[in-house]
C-alpha cells in the first residue's frame, strides 16, 4: 500500500546529498513514513528529531517568538531539517554538502500537503 506521503518523500529524496526523509509524529516521536538510504536508522532519527523540533517549538513560543516553522541543525557530519504542520513533522537528513536553500524551499512547499 502506498502511503499518502510517498509523493512528498520521493520528491525530497531526489535532492543530491539527502540521505533520508521522514514523516514523524511530533508528540510521540513515532515514524509515520520514510524514504531512507541504507544505513539511516529511521526509528532513531524519528524519535530524536521529533524531540528536537518539539523543544524548539516550545522554546520559541515560551520566548515570545511565536511558533517555530522551520528548524535546521548542522553538525560536523550532516544536517537535519525539520518543518511541522499539525501533529506531523517532516524531517530531512542530509550530508553537509546538500543545497540547503533548495531543500528548505521544497520542504516548506511539501509541508502544506501534510496533515
Amino acid at each position, binding site marked *: 500500500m502506498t502511503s499518502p506521503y510517498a509523493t512528498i518523500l520521493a520528491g525530497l529524496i531526489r535532492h543530491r546529498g539527502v540521505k533520508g526523509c521522514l514523516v514523524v509524529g511530533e508528540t510521540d516521536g513515532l515514524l509515520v513514513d520514510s524514504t531512507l538510504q541504507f544505513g539511516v536508522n529511521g526509528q*532513531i*532519527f524519528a524519535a*530524536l*528529531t521529533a*524531540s*528536537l523540533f518539539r*523543544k*524548539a517549538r516550545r*522554546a*520559541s513560543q*515560551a*520566548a*515570545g*517568538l*511565536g*511558533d*517555530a*516553522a*522551520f*528548524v*535546521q*541543525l*548542522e*553538525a*560536523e*557530519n*550532516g544536517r*537535519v531539517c525539520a518543518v511541522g504542520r499539525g501533529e506531523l513533522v517532516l524531517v530531512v537528513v542530509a550530508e553537509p554538502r546538500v543545497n540547503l*536553500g533548495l531543500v*528548505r524551499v521544497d520542504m516548506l512547499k511539501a509541508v502544506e500537503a501534510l496533515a
Partner: protein
Amino acid sequence: MMGPDDIRVLSDALAADPGSLVFLQLGEALRRQGQLDLAWRVAMRGAERHPQRPDAHDLLARVAADRGDLDRARSAWESALALSPGHPAAQKGLGFLFFQQGLRADAERLLAAAQAADPADASLGAALAKIRAIGADPADADDAAQVRPMAPTPPRASVAIAPPSAQPRTTQAIAAPAPFAPAPADPRDVFAGVLPDETHAALFLDADGLVVAGRYKAADGRDVSADIGAQLSGVSDEASRAMRHLGLGAWTHLAVEAEQASVAMAPVGDGVVLVAAPRRVPLGFVRRMLDRAAERVKRWVESGT
C-alpha cells in the same frame, strides 16, 4: 530568619507544586542564609515559570547582586520595572546599583520613587541625602561606596559590591550603540557593530543558559535577555543530545525560523552564541551575523574580560 526546617518545608511545598509562588519565599530564605547557588537555581526556575511576575525578576536580581553578577542584577531589575514601573523593591535595588555605578541621576530618580512608596525606610533617605550632597562633582563618586554602610537596612539586594565607575555614565550612554572595543565596559555592548540595527539581537549564554554578554530587547523595549536565553539554551542542549545519538558529530549551527523572528545559534567554548533577527531577514544573512558574533565573542573571551 528562617531555619533549616522552614526551608525544608518550603522546598517540599515547591516540589509538590512546582508552579506555585513558594519559590519567592524559598529563594529569599536561601539568599539570606547565603546559599546563593541554591537560591539562584530557585530564582531562575521561578522566573522561567513566571516571567510576567515582577517579584520573580526582583528575586533573581537580588540573588544575582549577592553573587556579584551586577549586569544580571541590573537586567533583572529592569525587567521587573518594565513589568511594574512602580515596583518599590526593584526601584530600590536598581537605584542602589546605579549609585554604585556612578549613575547618580538615575539612582536619585529611582531611590526617590522608592522613598515615596516607603518613607520610613531610613536607608533610602540616607542614600538620597548622600547623592544630593555629592552633587555634580564626579570626583565625589567614590563616596558612593559609603552608601551601603550608611544604610541601616540595606536594600534587600546587597548591591554595593562593585566599586563605582570613575567616569559617571548615564543609562542613555550605555544603551547607545558604540564602536566595538576589545574590552567594552559593559558586556552587553560586546556585539556593538556586529548587528545592523536594534531590531536584531545577540546574546552569549553560558552552559547554564545564563546571559554572559549581549542583550535582547523586546519590541516594547523591555530587556528580555534572561528569558530568551533561558528558553533557547534548552534547544541547544537538545541539539547536542540528538547529534550524539545520531552519530553526526558535534553540532555547529542551529537555526529556528519562528513567526516573529529567526534565531541562529552556534557553540562557542562551553557556551552558545545566539543571534536573532526579524523574520523578514534572509536566513543566510542571519547565519553570517551569527558567524561574526561568534568571532566577536571568541575575541572578547580571549581578551580576558
